[in-house]
C-alpha cells in the first residue's frame, strides 16, 4: 500500500487500513517503546495507548512536516519517555544497556526473536566505543542529545556528529542483512 493511500484510509477510519497499519508497523513501533521501557507489561500498555493515539490523531499528522513512520515513531518514543518520567524511574535504571537488551532478546522464547537478537548484536558490534555510547543513550535510554552533552560533558557538535556516524554505520550494515 502506498503511503498516500494508507493515510487516506486512516483518515476515513477504515478498519482494513488500520489492520494493515498494525501488521506493517507494530513490530517496529513496539521496538521503539521496548528500547526505552524494559518492563514488558508496562511497554505493552504504552504501546496500546500510543497506537490508539496514532489512529485517532491521524488528522493532526501533517505530510509536509515529515513522513508517517517518523511521526508515529515519535509518538511512541515520547509516550514511552513520558511514562518513564511519570513513574519517576531514575535515569540510571531507565533500561538496560545494549548488551542486556540484546541478551534479553536472545533469551526470548521465540525463535524469531533469537535470530534477530543475534542480528542486533552483530549490528551494534560494528560501532566503535564512542558511537555505541551515543546510540545506547539516545536510542536505548531515551536521552536527548542535549542531555547527553550536558550530563557527560561532550560538546553538542560532537554528539551530533557521532550520532550521524553511528547511524551511517548501522544503515550500511542493515542494508546487508
Amino acid at each position, binding site marked *: 500500500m502506498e503511503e498516500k493511500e494508507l493515510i487516506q484510509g486512516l483518515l476515513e477510519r477504515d478498519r482494513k487500513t488500520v489492520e494493515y497499519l498494525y501488521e506493517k508497523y507494530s513490530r*517496529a513501533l*513496539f521496538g521503539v517503546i*521496548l528500547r526505552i521501557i524494559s518492563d514488558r507489561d508496562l511497554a505493552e500498555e504504552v504501546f*496500546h495507548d500510543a497506537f*490508539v493515539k496514532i489512529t485517532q490523531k491521524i488528522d493532526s499528522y501533517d505530510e509536509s*512536516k515529515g*513522513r508517517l*513512520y517518523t511521526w508515529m515513531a515519535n509518538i511512541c518514543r515520547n509516550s514511552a519517555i513520558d511514562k518513564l518520567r511519570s513513574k519517576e524511574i531514575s535515569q540510571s535504571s531507565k533500561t538496560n544497556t545494549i548488551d542486556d537488551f540484546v541478551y534479553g532478546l536472545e533469551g526470548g522464547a521465540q525463535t524469531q526473536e533469537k535470530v534477530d537478537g543475534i542480528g542486533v548484536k552483530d549490528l551494534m558490534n560494528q560501532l566503535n566505543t564512542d558511537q555505541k555510547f551515543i546510540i545506547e543513550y539516545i536510542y536505548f535510554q531515551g536521552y536527548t542529545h542535549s542531555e547527553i552533552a550536558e550530563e557527560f560533558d561532550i560538546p553538542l557538535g560532537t554528539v*551530533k556528529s557521532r550520532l550521524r556516524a553511528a547511524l551511517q554505520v548501522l544503515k*550500511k550494515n542493515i542494508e546487508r542483512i
Partner: protein
Amino acid sequence: MKEFSVNIQEYIESGKLELFLLGELNEREREEVIAMAKAHPEIQQELDSLEEAMFSLDELTGVEPSLQTKEKIFATLDGDLQERKIPTPTAAPKETKTVKMTPWKPFAVAASLVAVLASAAAIYFAGKFYETDQKFVALQQEQAVLADNLNQVKQEFEQTDSRLDRLVAGDFRRIEMMGESFDMQKDAKVDVFWDQSQQEVFIAVNRLNSLSASFDYQLWAIGPEGPVGIGIVDPSQPFSLQQMSAVAEAGAFAITIEPKGGSESPTLEKLVVLGEVA
C-alpha cells in the same frame, strides 16, 4: 544560520537531519529542515533514506506486541472504525504476454556459459565493493570527527582573535603586578591591560602558583572608593588574555587569595601581587 548559502553536504553532515527524525529539534529548527529539504532534493533524499534506515533498525530490534494487546487495541478502537463504503478500485488483472521462443541449443549453452562467467565476476567485484565501501564509511566517520575538531579550534581561535583585535585597537596601558614585596609568592607576576576610556580590563598571568580547590585568586581595582573585586583569575592559563569586569577609576590593581568564588572585600594578609597605575 551563519551564512545564507549553506553548503548542502555540510548540512547533511551536521547531524540535524537525524535529530529531526528523532523529534529532537525545536519548532524553528524543524521548519528550517523542512524548508531545506524542499529546496534541495539531496537533503530530501538523505532524509528519506535515513527514515528508511531507522524503520529497518526499529523493525530489526523490535518485537511483536502480544496478541492480547492487539485485541485490546482493536476493542478500544471498535466504535471508531468502519468498513469503507466505497470499495477501493481493484486494478484489472494484467494480461501476461507470452513470447514464443525457438529452442536454440548452441546459443543456450553459450548463453549459460556467459551467465556463469558473469556471475563469477559479479561476486568478485561485489566482494571488492564491500571492502571499499567499509573503508569509505570508516573514512567518512573520521572526516566527521576531524571536521568537528576543526570547528572547535576555529571557535577558540575566533575568540582569541577578537580579544587581540580589541587589545590592538584600544588605548590599553599595561600595569605590571609583582609579588616581590609580599611574602606569599615572591616570583609571582601578572599583567593588567586597562583601557580607561573604554573601561575594559584584561589580564595575562605570567607566573602564578596553582591553588587548592577551595581557593581562588581575585583581582581588585583600588580606586577612590577603596578596593572593588573585578573578577576571578584563572592561574592555569598563562599568557592568555582573561577579560575582567569594567573599571573606570583605579590607582592600583592587586590580586589576593580568597575562598572559592571570591569575597566582598580583600583579605589583605593574602595579598599576592600589586601594581600601581603610573
